[in-house]
């Protein structure tokens, strides 16, 4: 196709519209630039890998969150799904179940837990906020009952050691969680841009009744979106558990908010139907870099919260200004 945008050389695409489109990326660049001037320890390979590893948990959850938000929903239960899936995988590893079996089981469990929210939203016609507020509380309760409020250790077997590698190990000099994050983003990008299901997600979020009249099985798409979100939370739970060699019953509390913040910073509309997965990656990185920078600059954690809130508010305000 001669008029196709992709055929143009890269430098020709840098115009005003492109700059506006890429504003979160530009914001990230600015952040990196400023902090690297302020702190000599910032722009080192070790620190950058450290940031990526810390970001991976939130980024992986945010991928699922992006998909749910694109359907005009929201999932508050990711933190609870993370904790329960973590407890499940810790139990399995503790019982010396091979990693190759324990991982799929935990991921499927996460998907099933997410699907519960999806069914309540799609079939029960309950607003996503309420439905997932319910599952958030419910699943946290189940986790507490299951673990009796105590950490679940993975034990000291050989299985446990290879499991721990998922959280602490390196592959080709890069932390394993960062690899997992990369795989998840590439998979989600493929799903949203190159499959029917991806198009349906945008359609359902853009106009549900039009999607239904276009022959899309709206309920199935929604349930699948929540199930994907659940399995992403489970993957995050696996990494957290592997890193600590035990599952904490209180793990993941408040993670839903960081994930939503990453999605919104990435330019995805909470109204659904509009957004890009790579925006979410940038959003998660902004939060990650900001946390790290504030630590390096010795800002007290109390002030860090205020700083983070200000950045998010600023980003959202710029976004709404542009639309007006």
């Amino acid at each position, binding site marked *: 196709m001669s008029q196709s945008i992709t055929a143009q050389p890269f430098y020709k695409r840098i115009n005003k519209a492109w700059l506006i489109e890429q504003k979160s990326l530009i914001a990230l660049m600015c952040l990196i630039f400023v902090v690297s001037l302020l702190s000599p320890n910032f722009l080192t390979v070790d620190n950058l890998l450290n940031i990526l590893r810390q970001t991976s948990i939130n980024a992986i959850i945010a991928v699922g969150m992006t998909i749910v938000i694109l359907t005009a929903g929201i999932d508050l239960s990711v933190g609870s799904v993370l904790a329960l899936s973590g407890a499940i995988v810790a139990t399995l590893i503790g019982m010396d179940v091979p990693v190759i079996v324990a991982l799929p089981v935990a991921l499927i469990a996460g998907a099933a837990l997410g699907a519960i929210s999806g069914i309540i939203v799609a079939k029960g016609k309950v607003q996503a906020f309420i439905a997932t507020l319910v599952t958030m509380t419910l699943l946290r309760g189940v986790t507490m009952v299951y673990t009796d409020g105590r950490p679940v250790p993975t034990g000291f077997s050989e299985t446990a050691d290879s499991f721990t590698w998922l959280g602490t190990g390196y592959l080709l000099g890069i932390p394993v969680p960062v690899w997992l994050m990369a795989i998840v983003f590439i998979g989600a990008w493929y799903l949203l841009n190159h499959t029917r299901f991806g198009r349906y997600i945008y*359609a359902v979020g*853009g106009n549900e009744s039009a999607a239904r*009249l276009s*022959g899309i099985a709206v309920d199935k798409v929604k349930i699948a979106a929540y199930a994907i979100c659940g399995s992403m939370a489970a993957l995050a739970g696996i990494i957290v558990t592997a890193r600590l060699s035990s599952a904490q019953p209180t793990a993941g509390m408040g993670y839903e908010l960081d994930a939503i913040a990453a999605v919104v910073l990435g330019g995805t509309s909470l109204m659904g139907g509009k957004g890009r997965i790579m925006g979410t990656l940038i959003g998660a990185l902004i939060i990650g870099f900001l946390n790290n920078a504030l630590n390096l600059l010795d800002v007290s954690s109390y002030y860090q919260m205020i700083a983070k809130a200000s950045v998010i508010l600023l980003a959202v305000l710029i976004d709404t200004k542009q639309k007006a």
Partner: protein
Amino acid sequence: MTQAILQLQAIEKSFPGVKALDKACLNVYPGQVMALMGENGAGKSTLMKVLTGIYSLDEGQIIYQGETRTFNGPRDSQAAGISIIHQELNLLPELTIAENIFLGREITSAFGRILWDEMNAQAAALLARLAISHAPQTRVGDLSLGEQQMVEIAKAISFDSKVIIMDEPTDALTDVETQSLFKVINELRAQGCGIVYISHRMQEIFTICDAVTVLRDGGFIHECAIADIDEDRLIERMVGRKLADQYPRIVNTHQGCRLAVSELSGLGVNNVSFNLNKGEILGFSGLMGAGRTELMKIIFGASAKTHGEINLNGNLIRLNSPQQALDAGIAYISEDRKGDGLLLELSVKENMSICALSKLSSGLQLRHQDEIAEVDQFIGAFNIKTPSRDARIGNLSGGNQQKVAIAKGLMTQPQVLILDEPTRGVDVGAKKEIYDLINRFKAQGMSIILVSSDMPELMGMSDRILVMHQGQITGEFDAAQAEQETILACAVGKTLNKDIA
């Protein structure tokens, strides 16, 4: 001619990349109805937005009651006595009729308490004037689309305006409601109001208007008394060229029954039976709320049926979802483009292919090149004017949006195409193109159901016309012999038989 109450002189307005208005003029005279005509994109709506201060003007001036004025927004112009009734409804469905009419200027006592009795009484008086048979305490969300439009009109009238602009006010109205609107317009005219009437419906223009102003490509073309012009010359002025016959009927050369519906009942539909032949255009007439859209949605599987059966090509089909209907070969293009027809945030391409993605993918993977090829083919064949296939569909004109909607249905290669009000809000030139498309499908043997409230269109395009009233079919006509009066009689509930008529 009397002195104009409102004059817009040589208005210019540019948006980035487009000159929307190029020396546009409009005069409004007290006690007269001025028709403002032009194709979609001619600048009618932009001109009205400049007048009411939603857009600022680049050049030109607005002279209102002898003074040069600028308005800083709709509130400002309304306070000065200029009301506008927009094409799109601006009502709050959860509030009552009275609350909507007096929104933001509730009638209150000295202490700020709302005087409900007073407010409802005033609203009731307005409703009575418009012959709306609902209590002012009725929730607006419970009204039909047409009735909601009437509430919007009641609201505009309540301002005691000197100039009232009506942008396609009858688009959603039934014939009966249109008549009571015309009565009110006549009253307002007698009181010395100046009215600007924007509509695509020629018949209405010649019925209700005194004079006409034509815009084309943002510029002023012509102003004259309505008595001095006829329909053909008016259309010529609007499109800038001669139009051939508006409804080019073609003879059906196909034979055999495609779709047989028998004793179908469901929500709003009661015991409906009819046959649709191959290569036939079957028109459905009726007043708003007669159950036509409801019937189509049952046939399309979007609403549940309680009784009856549907046969396609002699085989009984059971449809529980639009998905199954599309698979079976039935496509439905909704009357409500913005509500449940199009995905406004998505691109032309994504809208057009959304029903046909299963044909355009291998396993999970979309075949982008095939999709692009197919979409481009339809954009070319339908003459869809869009900057690119990736343009947001919300930015296209109504006519082009409608063409995309029809293309979307056609991409599934249906045997039965149901078009629900396919030319609503579409300008004259694009209407003709849509008619030609419909005829092309007909020639290919496709069976088409045409639901329309536009009587000349229905009579010009259809082979047969069925009339519905309160969920039942009350008349069947051969389009060649049908008369508007008898169709209307059936639509209001008189059961006629074509043999007797």
